[in-house]
């Protein structure tokens, strides 16, 4: 594996790295470093505008870079980074959704006290310090470099062709999100609890991933996905080592996609984190996690798919059923969206189980459509407020549609998309995923999925009924007029949902032309 130079002066051959192909990640990382320096050297009042220019500039530059790279299909850096169709599509989606989440993070009009983040995350909740910092209009601009690092981690996570790089990228992606989840300006104790819970359970899941990586190395003698695939096909006899390794790696990745029974962190983390960060967690992290899960299962362990598909069947069924049924009982809209995201992860897993090019394309389509609808939904949640901040309890949403018809209509549209009603992107996504699964013989699974989506339609419809078919009371929250930032996010979410629902072909072409994972 290691070509060692025999000649005396050169101790080792330097592996060639195609910097052009990995430039999207490098841009984000470089701007993240600049952003850290801005925190250190730029005056307090100038920091926010400078950071916003840097962040959105970086996203724009990276997106343009990804477009110019769209035809690139290669594996570089000693086989550790794969720049292939699915990776590029997912990186593009991550950049777009992260830019929308960044707009929610930059919103300062909806909360009368300003920023969505705590004035100082280090001040104790309820202390004199906290009150003084808030009154003096302090806010924390460190979230911007953290956001950039997290996005860089996600982009590497979907194109890592090496378990070691995948693990490092997983941590680079997660650590800033654990931090940002604990920095809400309001209900800070809830936010800190969410952060700690997510961090501890995330560390636990990372340990499983690491153990799985060690066992894989024991089996294959390499952590490179391509070499693992070779070892798997070279030793066809069932090995307990390999099965344990696949199980452990899957646990680590299924935690990140919030599949049952590894979903316990989801409701608390989604509810406690600032809504902008929840939007980031629910969209980009989910895309990145599904990208990595599919790459590991398809590329490295595609040869033993008959061993791991039964396990995924059970996880997918549990995820769909538990997510849908528990969502019905929720009375808080953020918790309901959290369980809804669990249920949606189950539907996406149905596409993963197809183990085919069609399945991969359908999952890409689904996560992108779901990502835009979700970020729109969380943007709507962030503008529905009362005196205590965001009015997340569903009782305060009664009659909201009559009070603010546009907001009510947009949220209804997004809910219909989650439920998979025709003419929305959610319908096309479900159709693509289910037909890919049926083509691969998973008919029974699709039947369970359809039943689960009927159950899930119930709680999505309940929100619509609550908003439009009950009279507003004095407890009904009101819709705050946001700045252009949140308006853009809500508009983007609604537009993508409708346009992709009516004319899905361009996006279908994009995901179908992405092709397969390279190795």
């Amino acid at each position, binding site marked *: 594996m290691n070509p060692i130079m025999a000649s005396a002066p050169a101790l080792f051959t330097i592996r060639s*790295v195609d910097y052009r192909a990995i430039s999207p990640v490098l841009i984000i990382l470089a701007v993240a470093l600049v952003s850290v320096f801005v*925190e250190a050297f730029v005056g307090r009042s100038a920091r926010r505008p400078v950071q916003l220019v840097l962040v959105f500039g970086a996203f724009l530059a990276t997106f343009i870079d990804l477009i110019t790279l769209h035809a690139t299909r290669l594996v570089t850096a000693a086989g550790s980074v794969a720049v292939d169709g699915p990776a590029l599509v997912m990186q593009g989606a991550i950049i777009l959704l992260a830019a929308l989440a960044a707009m929610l993070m930059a919103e300062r009009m909806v909360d009368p006290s300003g920023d969505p983040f705590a004035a100082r*995350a280090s001040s104790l909740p309820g202390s004199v310090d906290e009150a003084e910092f808030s009154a003096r209009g302090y806010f924390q601009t460190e979230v911007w470099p953290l956001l950039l690092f997290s996005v860089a981690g996600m982009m590497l996570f979907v194109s890592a062709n090496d378990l*070691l*790089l995948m693990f*490092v990228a997983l941590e*680079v992606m997660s*650590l800033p999100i654990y*931090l940002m989840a604990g920095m809400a300006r309001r209900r800070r104790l809830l936010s800190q609890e969410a952060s700690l819970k997510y961090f501890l359970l995330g560390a636990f899941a990372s340990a499983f991933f690491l153990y799985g990586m060690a066992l894989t190395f024991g089996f294959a003698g390499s952590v490179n996905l391509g070499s693992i695939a070779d070892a798997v096909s070279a030793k066809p006899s069932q090995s307990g080592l390999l099965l344990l390794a696949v199980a452990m790696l899957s646990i680590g990745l299924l935690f990140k996609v919030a599949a049952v029974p590894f979903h316990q962190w989801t409701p608390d983390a989604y509810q406690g984190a600032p809504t902008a960060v929840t939007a980031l967690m629910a969209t980009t992290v989910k895309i990145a996690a599904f990208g990595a899960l599919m790459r590991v299962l398809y590329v490295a362990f595609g040869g033993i798919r008959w061993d791991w598909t039964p396990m995924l069947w059970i996880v997918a069924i549990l995820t769909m059923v538990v997510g849908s049924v528990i969502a019905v009982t929720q009375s808080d809209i953020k918790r309901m969206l959290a369980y809804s995201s669990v249920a949606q992860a189950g539907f996406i897993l149905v596409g993963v189980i197809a183990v085919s090019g069609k399945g991969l394309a359908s999952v890409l389509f689904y996560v992108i459509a779901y990502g835009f609808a979700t970020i729109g939904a969380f943007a709507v949640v962030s503008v529905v407020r009362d005196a205590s901040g965001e009015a997340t309890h569903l009782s305060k949403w009664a009659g909201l549609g009559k009070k603010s018809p546009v907001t009510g209509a947009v949220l209804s549209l997004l809910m219909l998309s989650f439920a998979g009603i025709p003419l929305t992107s959610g319908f096309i996504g479900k159709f693509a995923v289910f037909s890919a699964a049926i083509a691969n013989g998973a008919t029974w699974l699709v039947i369970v999925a359809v039943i689960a989506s009927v159950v899930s339609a119930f709680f999505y419809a309940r929100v619509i009924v609550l908003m439009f078919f009950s009279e507003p009371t004095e407890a009904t929250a009101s819709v705050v007029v946001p700045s252009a930032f949140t308006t853009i996010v809500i508009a983007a979410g609604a537009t993508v949902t409708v346009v992709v629902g009516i004319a899905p072909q361009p996006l279908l072409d994009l995901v179908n032309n992405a092709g397969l994972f390279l190795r």
Partner: protein
Amino acid sequence: MNAAVQAGNVGETLVFWICAFFSVLGALGLIVSRKAVHSALWMALVMINLAILFVANSAPFLGMAQIVVYTGAVMMLFLFVLMMVGVDSSDSLIETIKGQRVAGILLGIGMGLLLVFGLGSALTNSTSVGLDAANGVDKGNVQGIAHLIFTDYLIPFEVTSALLITAALGAMVLAHRERWIPRLTQMQLSRARFAGSGHPGNLPNPGIYARHNAVDTPALLPDGSTTDLSIPGPLVARGGIRPVDHAEVDEVAAITDGGQS
């Protein structure tokens, strides 16, 4: 280990069983001890034994790094933090979910059995390979690791720096206390003390009463009234002044009188 057994290397086998016993013992102690300090010390035991096993398996660099970095630096830092939090703090044993502990123990044992038997059956009769390839080519452990870091694992190694920067930034965000007003200089402080209605001398000590003499009790002035000057500013701001009831003083006097007569 199997290679060692096949080679008839009794010493290595002995080392393995001794270290395996102590590291499993340490791991069990880590999870069953109630005090965090005990857990930390058990953890150190686990790590030292693992380090010995690494060295015995021809990975001296990893073994030394384990001792210096983990046992030496990380665990001791952890102990320092525990000292600051309070050595006597121990876990609460109240179950928030009924039956949680029993379920946890059963699942843990199940997981342990799965791993022991799964790995045991997979690794029995297998031969170790690759040790010579890993250590032989570069004539040593350190060289071998350096080689891999700068060739095959260049990108992961570089990206780790992003992780470290994030960690440092996160530590700053969560722990760095800023002041909302600039720190006063010595000159300003002494001016403030002597000018106007300042209090030039030492502020009074906390009030000392029969039942309490904590910092939140206001001092008793010679004329029998109380002053809040003895109470630290943050306590005053939080409204943490313990009111002094003169009836209480009288009551104490009455009790003492009763005892004497």
